[in-house]
């Protein structure tokens, strides 16, 4: 509805203004007529001038009497004219001199010759013409806007249909596994709406919760921006596909400490660079999954070999082999904190918060030209997700694995502390200086001189003690070194 109103407004406003402009031109003609009428009186003057000659004869004859002949329809102007003529009449009482009137004959001769000149019609340039054809650029623009609006409506509806198709297929499986399916977070309490939560015209969310092992599962249907014509055109150059991203947040006690990732080689390389946990714990290059019976297209990134061995059981391999084309990436991590944050120097004083997470990214088949059937074909992948949740709960590292994992985590923390050591030192130094300054101010502000002296002595004694301590430490270190 919104888009319709906008479209109508776009058409009507310039249309009404264009019409108003045309009205002005029509009125112009009427104005001209009125102007003509204003000068109508003076038009008659020229005719009266011709008729004046016989009147002149009359006035010259009556000159001695100085009688002014009043004719009908004459006003004051005419009388003035008559008086002027009366005065001139004296000089004109003599017989007409032909030489005087030579110029006058030419005038009537030249005016008809002027009428014989042909009227040339000048071509009005295109931009001054008032025809619709000259506005072709504007028509193009409006057509473009209409096309954009049409694409918006069509794209929006298609994304909606795909989302509904996905949800209708998966609803049963989800409702049997989770107590709460679909919550948009608007109510204080968790209420199951049983509907997808539309974040955008191309992103749909679904929150499921209420199952053993996991806190909750957030499913994001990330469709292509079919509602944006620019995006549609860009996709013609660079094909892309819809994605389904599933993020399972595990309970702390239900998952052991390990970092493991699996997916297409390209995706893993990208994730290794972007993700905080993968870059810190899985420093090796992605290895081919062929060793475990997976197709060549899939690669594995793992913190240690034991985790890979544990994860790749028969059922998992079966899932991965059958649906390899739909899998973009799978990530199991107890140190998941999202992508690396771009931080300025001096601000990083604490490690980012981590959560035990299972992250799945699936590609919808069809690479852009998706149909509702393609969305339905993702159902087995959801079964894989549920299976993975249970698997992550069951899988426990042995003693060696646990030791290795703990060592890794301690190492990462140490590295982090070393990096921030300088910043933390500076922070401590500045805090110490602040304290000293505050004390000095207190001493200065003391009015009682006795108290002032005592406080100063106390501050001196404290500083001396600190110096002594430092010297002791240095001596101890020297002794140890020796």
């Amino acid at each position, binding site marked *: 509805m919104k888009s319709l109103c*906008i479209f109508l*407004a*776009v058409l009507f*406003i*310039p249309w009404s*203004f*264009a019409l108003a*402009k045309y009205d002005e031109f029509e009125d112009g003609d009427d104005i001209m007529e009125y102007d003509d009428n204003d000068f109508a009186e003076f038009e008659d003057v020229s005719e009266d001038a011709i008729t004046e000659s016989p009147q002149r004869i009359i006035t010259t004859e009556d000159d001695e009497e100085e009688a002014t002949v009043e004719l009908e329809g004459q006003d004051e102007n005419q009388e003035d004219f008559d008086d002027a003529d009366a005065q001139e009449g004296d000089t004109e009482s003599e017989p007409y001199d032909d030489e005087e009137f030579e110029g006058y004959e030419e005038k009537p001769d030249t005016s008809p010759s002027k009428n014989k000149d042909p009227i040339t019609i000048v071509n009005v340039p295109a*931009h*001054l013409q008032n025809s619709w054809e*000259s*506005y*072709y*650029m*504007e028509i193009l*623009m409006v057509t*473009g*806007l209409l096309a*954009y*609006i049409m694409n*918006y409506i069509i794209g929006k509806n298609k994304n909606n249909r795909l989302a509904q198709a996905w949800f209708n297929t998966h609803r049963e499986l989800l409702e*049997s*596994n*989770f*107590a*709460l399916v679909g*919550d*948009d*977070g608007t*109510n*204080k*309490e*968790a*209420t*199951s709406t049983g509907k997808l*939560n*539309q*974040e*955008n*015209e191309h992103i749909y969310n679904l*929150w499921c*919760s*209420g*199952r*053993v*092992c996991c*806190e*909750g599962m*957030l499913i994001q249907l990330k469709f292509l*921006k079919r*509602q*944006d*014509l*620019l995006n549609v055109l860009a996709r013609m150059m660079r094909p892309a596909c819809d994605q389904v991203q599933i993020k399972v947040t595990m309970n702390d006690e239900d998952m052991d400490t390990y970092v493991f990732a699996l997916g297409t080689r390209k995706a893993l390389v990208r994730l290794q660079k*972007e993700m905080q946990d993968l870059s810190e714990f899985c420093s090796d290059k992605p290895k081919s999954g062929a060793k475990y019976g997976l197709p060549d297209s899939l690669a594995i990134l793992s913190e240690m070999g034991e985790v890979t061995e544990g994860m790749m059981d028969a059922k998992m391999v079966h899932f991965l082999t059958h649906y390899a084309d739909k899998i973009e990436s799978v990530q199991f991590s107890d140190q998941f904190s*999202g*992508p690396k*944050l*771009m931080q300025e120097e001096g601000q990083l004083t604490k490690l980012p918060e981590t959560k035990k997470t299972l992250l799945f990214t699936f590609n919808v088949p069809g690479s852009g030209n998706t149909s509702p059937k393609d969305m339905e074909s993702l159902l087995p992948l959801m079964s894989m997700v549920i299976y993975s949740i249970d698997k992550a709960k069951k899988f426990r590292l042995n003693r060696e694995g646990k030791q290795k994992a703990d060592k890794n985590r301690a190492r990462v923390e140490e590295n982090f502390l070393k990096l921030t050591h300088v910043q933390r030192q500076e922070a401590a130094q500045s805090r110490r200086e602040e304290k000293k300054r505050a004390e000095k101010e207190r001493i200065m502000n003391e009015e009682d001189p006795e108290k002032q002296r005592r406080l100063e002595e106390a501050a001196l004694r404290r500083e001396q003690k600190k110096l002594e301590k430092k010297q002791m430490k240095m001596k101890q270190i020297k002794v140890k070194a020796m």
Partner: protein
Amino acid sequence: RGQRGRPPRSYKAPSAESSPALEDPTPDYMNLLGMVFSMCGLMLKLKWCAWIAVYCSFISFANSRSSEDTKQMMSSFMLSISAVVMSYLQNPQPMSPPW
């Protein structure tokens, strides 16, 4: 298999600060661009600027998130429409192509 253990947790939308890389900046950029072009079209009386502003505000609307303020969107859109109308009121001649 429905194993329901502890009570379900309610949904908490991921905050935008925690995932800046995932946030799409397109609607904000297009909004700003639309306003800039509208002002250019109004001040410099350039028709093509005004038309581009209309397109920018449409693109911003199409890419916007549902949580975003519709007032901002509508104001940018109205500004671009007014830029187009004012350009044509001042100079009703059609737009000439740049070639």
